[in-house]
């Protein structure tokens, strides 16, 4: 557990319930990002997160410190969101067959230089957009890995999924993102090419 979390929790358990606001501020945005990746809807995500925080408050005295506070906390957020998701019954059905062969990859377009493109805000926007579009099944593991910066073992504890499934989902999430961004960038390169051609024709 991080020292900061530890200190805040000690204060809350000592009766300083106002310290809970600090804990909220510390984990608010990361938890909201996770909830959004799962529920894909701002209202539902906030409602679930509110529920999760209330649960944390009520059960904080039973937190046994077997894992880090972050792992324990994100497990609660994950469970609340999973319940909300199942209630909504909108879970996207995706084949999770891990034995599938790696798909044949499309190579990046010749004219595309990722080092240059990364500096453009357009690339960042495209990546951000495509991350948000990831199906919730993959978005959860992806967010826990990149935003919460949890390791595989911690993701296993949070999601309750087997290690193999976690690794597989993370890989597929990154492949989905790669393909989506590439498709998007190929479109942009195509537009630029046709723009240049039009320019040359005019000249």
């Amino acid at each position, binding site marked *: 557990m991080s020292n900061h979390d530890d200190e805040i929790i000690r204060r809350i358990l000592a009766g300083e319930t106002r310290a809970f606001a600090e804990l*909220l501020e510390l984990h*608010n945005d990361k938890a909201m990002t996770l909830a959004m990746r799962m529920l894909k809807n701002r209202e539902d995500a906030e409602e679930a997160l509110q529920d999760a925080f209330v649960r944390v408050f*009520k059960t904080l005295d039973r937190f046994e410190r077997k894992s880090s506070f972050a792992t324990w906390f994100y497990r609660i957020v994950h469970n609340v969101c999973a319940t909300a998701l199942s209630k909504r019954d909108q879970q996207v059905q995706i084949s999770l067959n891990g034995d599938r062969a790696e798909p044949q990859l499309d*190579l*990046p377009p010749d004219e595309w230089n990722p080092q240059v493109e990364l500096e453009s805000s357009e690339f960042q926007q495209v990546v951000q957009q495509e991350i948000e579009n990831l199906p919730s099944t993959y978005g959860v593991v992806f967010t826990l890995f*990149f935003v919460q910066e949890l390791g595989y073992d911690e993701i296993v504890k949070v999601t309750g999924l087997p290690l193999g499934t976690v690794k597989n989902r993370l890989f597929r999430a990154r492949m989905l993102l790669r393909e989506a961004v590439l498709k998007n960038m190929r479109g942009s390169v195509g537009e630029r090419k046709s723009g240049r051609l039009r320019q040359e024709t005019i000249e």
Partner: protein
Amino acid sequence: MSHLTSKQVMQLLDGMIEAGEQVRLNAHLTLCGRCRQEFALQQALYRATKQQSLVKTSAGFTARVLAQTALREKEQSAVLKVLTRYGHLLAIVFGLGILSFALSTISGWSLTTKKLDALRPSDTLLDYSARVTAWLGQQFHQMAQKLTEFAGEQNLKLFFIAIFIILALTLFDRLVVQQFIKTRS
């Protein structure tokens, strides 16, 4: 060497490849333009992913959560707090109730032989509380006497059954009632 797989490229970026293998893959990258291109793409995605912006909660979210936690604290102070703190005592009192009921049914013994006088108009609160205390003392004295007689009458079996009931109820409280409270909260 054949081209690197996407998995290998990702593992290389995540630093999850053994040192020896890493040297071999890096050597391949310097020679193979296609894999270098793939690596550059994955690297760009990795960096962009790390820089992704977080989703903010709406204004007033923290206040709403804090208000709800304060409300929960109040709610819990009524029934749940009593059950959580004094559940085992309630179980023992209930068990004693069953014990006295069983004893009165079987051996014609009643704890209420001398009834408590009702509140008289002339009573002050102090007078009445003194009478209630005296009455309770008598009841306990009587109960202790009867229990001694009862044990003397070799009705120990029934007595132990009653003790067993108390223990069972206490266990029921610990294992069921308290767990139920935990689950609810």
